[in-house]
């Protein structure tokens, strides 16, 4: 009996082996949740950072303000002109 069941399963498996696999639906990314990517999100590989412009602007602003701030501090600390000595 066991042999018959095993043989049936084997034949059934062989019969199903050449059937095409069930079609897998492509993952749909909702429009609102899809992050912006310059080449399109469908072309973005795994692990690619998307967005982050606020960090970029913050860094460039910090650099510019840093230069202006340090220059200003140097200006206010500049040596005062020495008064003419009369004697």
């Amino acid at each position, binding site marked *: 009996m066991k042999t018959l069941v095993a043989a049936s399963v084997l034949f059934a498996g062989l019969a199903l082996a050449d059937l095409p696999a069930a079609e897998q639906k492509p993952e749909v990314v909702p429009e609102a949740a899809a992050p912006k*990517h*310059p080449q399109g999100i469908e072309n973005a*590989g795994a*692990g*690619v*950072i*998307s*967005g*982050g*412009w606020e*960090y*970029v602007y*913050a*860094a*460039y602003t*910090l*650099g*510019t303000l*840093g*230069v202006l701030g*340090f*220059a200003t501090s*140097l200006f206010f*600390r*500049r*040596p005062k002109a020495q008064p003419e000595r009369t004697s």
Partner: protein
Amino acid sequence: MPPFVPLTLFALVVAAIIAHVAVPSVRGWLWKPIAGLGAFMLVALWYLGLVWAPPEQFMSDVGRILYVHVPHVWMALLAFTLNVGCAVAYLMKKSFVTDALAESAAEVGVYFGAVGVTMGSIWARPTWGVWWDWDPRLISTTVMLLAYVGYLALRSFTEDPERRATWSAVAAILSYVSLPIVWFSVRWWNSLHQVQSSPSTVDKPMVQVLRWGAITLLCFLYVFIVKRYQIARSRQTAAMELPPLEAPRPEAA
């Protein structure tokens, strides 16, 4: 750009600083065109870094931060190198000129280093997911910056200009030990921070923008050091003109 060009540019900046110190006629005007060039290049860096350069393969637009972060840290390392050079020069031949130059380079180096580390933190948030990580590169950079803050603090501990110059020259040499540790930390230890890139592994437009940023900050490095040097020299002169401290009067018997 041939590999010797960046070093040549740094040598030119050092030569311009020496010219500023040694040639009085240069002192009044040379910093002005260089400051103007730096300002123009800084404005252009915004366009080149934010628009012209392509997004990085994995970091995408966040990679644009590197065009300002990396040059800032480079400038800090160059300023600290100038500082140790002046410190060694002072110990070999006592001169308040090299002492003032060392002080200027250290302060400018701390400025560039602090801004560079802050930019690195801004970059780390979207890239690593954290503002800060106790990583060998970040720890060694922090220790280096703190060492130079300590160097600047040490200078205010004593009134005697000669003693201050000697002590701080020794402190400058000790602080400089941290610099190769910072540079090689990403190779010596397992670091989250990436190792140094080479132009052969980076896309050409990215290398060009990175160099543009470096030359921009090199202009400001020169201007900041020479203007800070004038302040340091003025303070030295004021300290020299102070009357000597009165000796304690012997008590009447």
